[in-house]
């Protein structure tokens, strides 16, 4: 009767409410997916064109069919071909080596610096911050000549350190600033409590703060690695055949004829250097995220 009606009504209303909530949830989920698709298209469409071109025969470089046509693997073979003095394979190794070293060193000394800037009180802090930022203000193109002379004078031309040290300096300001800004957000009282528990300051930092800062450090590492991976101007003048990174190797690609631009080989090289990098980052990210959640659940 009335009570039943009331309860049915109530249930109906609740159902409605739940349905509305579910709908809202669904709608939100749908919007997320739509956005994700838009992001995918925006980021991948030009890259898709790179890949399609990479698989085209040289003779059909300028084909504009959207789907792959005149498919061939020749361009990849051309990219790795060493008979004309190309050293793309060696350059890949060089780039990885330079990138990893730059990332590791700049992260290490960047973490030191950021810790000092975020946690310690000392005089001239503003001076140091300004100095570090000032390093990102000089036009990079104007650094080449002085560096060339400096490295010639000390006999470093063409060495790995002549490529690694400038790259460290290019990524350091960003590394230090990013880490400082994240470190300042850290719940440092945890470090204090860990010290109360008997950890040294170093242990407390490593065991408590570092895991919390992992996303930030990881992001910074990607940023540092990719900047060094992308660096071209300095490397083009300071490297030699044995130490050149991929960016320089790609700029050395030449067509079979003078004046001919080897677009297909360049795009193949672009594909080769991009895809493994992205996969690598993805794997690392999974690992690190997994490690983090595991730690938190414990």
């Amino acid at each position, binding site marked *: 009767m009335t009570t039943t009606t009331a309860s049915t009504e109530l249930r109906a209303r609740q159902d409605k409410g739940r349905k509305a909530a579910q709908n809202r949830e669904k709608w939100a989920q749908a919007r997320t*997916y739509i956005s994700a698709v838009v*992001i*995918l298209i*925006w980021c*991948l469409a*030009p*890259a898709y*064109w*790179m890949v399609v071109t990479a698989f085209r025969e040289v003779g059909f470089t*300028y084909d*504009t069919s959207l789907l792959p046509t005149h498919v061939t693997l020749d361009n990849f073979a051309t990219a790795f071909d060493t008979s004309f003095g190309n050293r793309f394979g060696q350059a890949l190794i060089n780039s990885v080596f330079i990138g990893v070293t730059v990332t590791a060193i700049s992260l290490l*000394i*960047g973490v*030191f610096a950021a810790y*000092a*800037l*975020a946690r*310690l009180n*000392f*005089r001239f*802090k*503003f001076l*140091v*911050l300004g*100095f*570090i*930022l*000032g390093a990102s203000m*000089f036009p990079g193109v*104007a*650094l080449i000549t002085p560096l060339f002379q*400096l490295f010639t004078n000390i006999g470093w031309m063409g060495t790995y350190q002549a490529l690694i040290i400038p790259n*460290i*300096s*290019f990524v350091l*300001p960003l590394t*230090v*600033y*990013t880490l400082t*800004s994240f470190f*300042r957000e850290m*719940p*440092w*009282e945890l470090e204090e409590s860990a010290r109360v528990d008997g950890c040294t300051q170093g242990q407390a930092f490593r065991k408590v703060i570092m895991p919390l800062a992992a*996303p930030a450090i990881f*992001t910074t590492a*990607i940023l540092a690695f*990719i900047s060094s991976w*992308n660096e*071209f101007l300095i490397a083009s003048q300071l490297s030699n055949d044995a130490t050149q990174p991929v*960016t320089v190797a790609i*700029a050395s690609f030449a067509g079979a004829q003078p004046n001919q631009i080897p677009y297909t080989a360049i795009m193949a*090289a*672009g594909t080769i250097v*991009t895809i493994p990098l*992205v996969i690598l*980052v*993805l794997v690392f990210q999974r690992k690190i995220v997994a490690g983090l959640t595991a*730690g938190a*659940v414990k």
Partner: protein
Amino acid sequence: MATELGPTPVKGPASGGTPVHHGPKGVGEDNKILSQGKWATWLLAPTIIALGIVIVYPIISAIVMSFQKDAGLDPATGLFTAGGPAGIQNYVNWLGQQCAAPGGGTVACPPGTLGGQFWSATGTTFLFTVITVTFETILGFWMAMIMARTFKGRGLVRAAVLVPWAIPTAVTAQLWLFIFAFEGIANKLFNASILWTGSEWPAKWAVIIADTWKTTPFMALLILAGLQMIPADVYEAAKVDGATAWQRFRLITLPLVKPALMVAILFRTLDALRMFDLPYILTGGANNTTTLSILVINQIRQGFNSAAALSTITFIIIFLVAFIFVRFLGANVVEQSGATGKGKK
């Protein structure tokens, strides 16, 4: 261990990113600062040294060179001879767009000289910077918000976002040149016949689109890292309190991401002000797309000393922008720690 720590203390927008402080400790304070200063010196030394070698030395050498004249031709031998001291003439020439006159002295730079492009290059550089950084911030924020959500295929999106940035610039620039060719895929796709690199605004847009595409991931990643540092329970609490999505964004997300966001914007701005490869390869600087860095490298080929002066001017311009940025837009990135470090006294 995490359970012991309890819920992460929520820092409201008001407290921003203020680090935890132990307050004045009376007599011990000065000693503490001293010992911390010692520590800080050791921790900062590697960074300072690395930057010193690679950045400070070139800057100083550029400044020294900028007060010398460019080498001139000795009419008798046909050989270049060192120009001698120039005082501030190189600077005066750039800022006033003055070029050497055949009879001695200077005249207003005629079209076709680098000297005549200084102010237009400055304008172009700022235009590119403002537009690309704005686009990249908005797009990057949006991408980061999406990537921070949980959904199937999130890993794919995160990987995809990296792609534009992971492609080396040398390839990117060629790729866009290829795409924006008259018979290229861009025109074909939209059934247009735009002279992308051949007229002013299309050329500018070509550069802006290519740059935005390439560097948005940088923004997105940094902002995402900032988002990931926000504890989920803050959102839950706000949701329970009935905050709308917009309120949550404005009152929680934005303030908590602000430090990371500011670092991202600051560094993007500094980078954009030094933009070089994309316009250089896409347009060669034609159609008013010459940036200050392009002007510098073109000038290096014509005379090192004027180029050194131009580099220094560019440095000063970027310095001023950073100054204004920090002063007025409240890039509390650095300010707070500077203030707390000194302000305690």
